[in-house]
Every structure is written in structure tokens, then in C-alpha cells.
């Protein structure tokens, strides 16, 4: 059994200021999850496999707005975490090129928790 320190997870930061239907949010998160997974499989294959084998944990967090998301993207760059910024093609609901979700990881759950400790879970009012 893995200790808590070894647990791996992926964080999906969703912009809370956009009015998207649950289906739209789900699809945007899925884009981010697929992108991050494909990147991770290339760059950090061992972490990726371990994450896949331990339930592919994912968590959705609420980001305030575009500025907030870009701030977190910059943080991920600094810390060196795999991440993927989703820009919507704008065929539905939001204008084209709108930034909707930032996917981060898979990475150690503890480092994600440290980084995003002040973000709320998405969808919990």
C-alpha cells in the first residue's frame, strides 16, 4: 500500500467566473486531462504509469478568473509540473479562444495540495 506521501493526483482548475453548463465544464476538464496524460506519458512515464495504476486520481478546483489561471500556469512553470492550458474553440457557450481550464499533473498529491491549498473544490458553494 502506498503511503499518503506517495499518492499521485491530477488537479483540474476550472474558471469559476464563466457560466458554463456542467457538460461543458466536464468536456473542458477532459481536454485538460487527456493533454496532461499524453504529455506525462512522454516526459514522466514512471509517474504516469503509477498514477494510472493507482486509480488515476483527479480533483476539480475552482479558479477565480483568467488572471488567476494564468498565475497558476506560471507557478507550474516555476515548479516544473506538467500542465496544460485549455483554450476553447468557441463553438458553443463561450467566445473563441477563451481560457477555460488548467490541468496540472499527474504529480505527488502532497505537492499539489501545498501549491493549491487556498483553492476551493469546484462546484461546492
Amino acid at each position, binding site marked *: 500500500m502506498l503511503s499518503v506521501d506517495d499518492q499521485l493526483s491530477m488537479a483540474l482548475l476550472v474558471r469559476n467566473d464563466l457560466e458554463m453548463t456542467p457538460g461543458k465544464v*466536464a468536456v473542458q*476538464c477532459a481536454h485538460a*486531462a487527456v493533454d496532461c496524460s499524453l504529455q506525462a506519458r512522454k516526459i514522466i512515464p514512471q509517474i504516469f504509469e503509477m498514477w494510472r495504476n493507482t486509480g488515476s486520481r483527479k480533483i476539480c478546483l475552482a479558479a477565480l478568473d483568467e488572471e488567476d489561471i494564468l498565475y497558476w500556469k506560471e507557478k507550474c512553470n516555476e515548479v516544473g509540473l506538467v500542465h496544460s492550458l485549455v483554450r476553447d474553440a468557441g463553438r458553443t457557450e463561450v467566445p473563441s479562444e477563451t481560457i477555460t481550464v488548467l490541468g496540472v499533473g499527474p504529480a505527488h498529491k502532497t505537492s499539489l495540495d501545498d501549491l493549491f491549498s487556498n483553492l476551493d473544490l469546484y462546484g461546492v458553494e
Partner: protein
Amino acid sequence: MGFRSFLHRMTAPKMTKPVENRPIKLVLVINHSLGMKKGKIAAQVGHASVQTVLSAGSVIPHIVDAWLGQGQKKVCVKATDEQQMNDLFSKASQANIHTSKTIDAGHTQIPKGSYTVLAIGPWYEAEIDEITGHLSLL
């Protein structure tokens, strides 16, 4: 197998079927009877998408690559219950369309073993629409 034929096989170009120039999409069917919250739904759809991309990647890599190149179109629709998800699964299987089921580990919100999402595709949009076209968007 002799050494020469082994070498030949190793160096031969991979056999891939040509991809037809038609839109490809991935449909994610949510089990609406579970009453999941939106963050939970998003995570489950994320699981389903990664799972189906990886498994489809080993059976129909040319389709997956084309789909990624087209901007990985995804659509989220809802099924009323597990029974309807099973019907859709049978129809997709009969049509030889790749599917993948997501069963929740039950750490949050819903009981362990709940059947949360059925991913259908990625595959040609027109053929998927024959199976899921009547379902309403989430």
C-alpha cells in the same frame, strides 16, 4: 522466425488504415440517476476520456491521432440510468465502435462500483450520432 524476416518485420512501416476525411468525436454518456455534482462529473468524464484515449490508442491509433489533430471534439450527454447505458453499450459494440466504461472507486459522493460514464469513440461523428443522437446534452 528467421533473423532476416525478424529484421524485415522490425523495419517495415506500420500498417495503418487511411483515415477518412470526416469529423471524428468522442461522446461521453453520464449516468444521470447518480445525481453527481458538477465537479464530480468533470472528474469522471476526465477519467473516461483518458481511459478511452489510451485504450483506443492501441487498437485504432490512426483514428485517435486524427481526432487529436481535429481538436479532440468531445460531447457530454446524459442517460437516465444504467439500463440505458447498457443499451447504448450493446449498440456501440454491435456497430464495432470503441467504448470504455468508467466505474467509480467510491471515495466521494457515490457508492463504490457505481457505473458513472460510458465513453463512445473517438469515432466518425455520423456513425456515433446514429447511436447517441437522441440523447440530450448535459
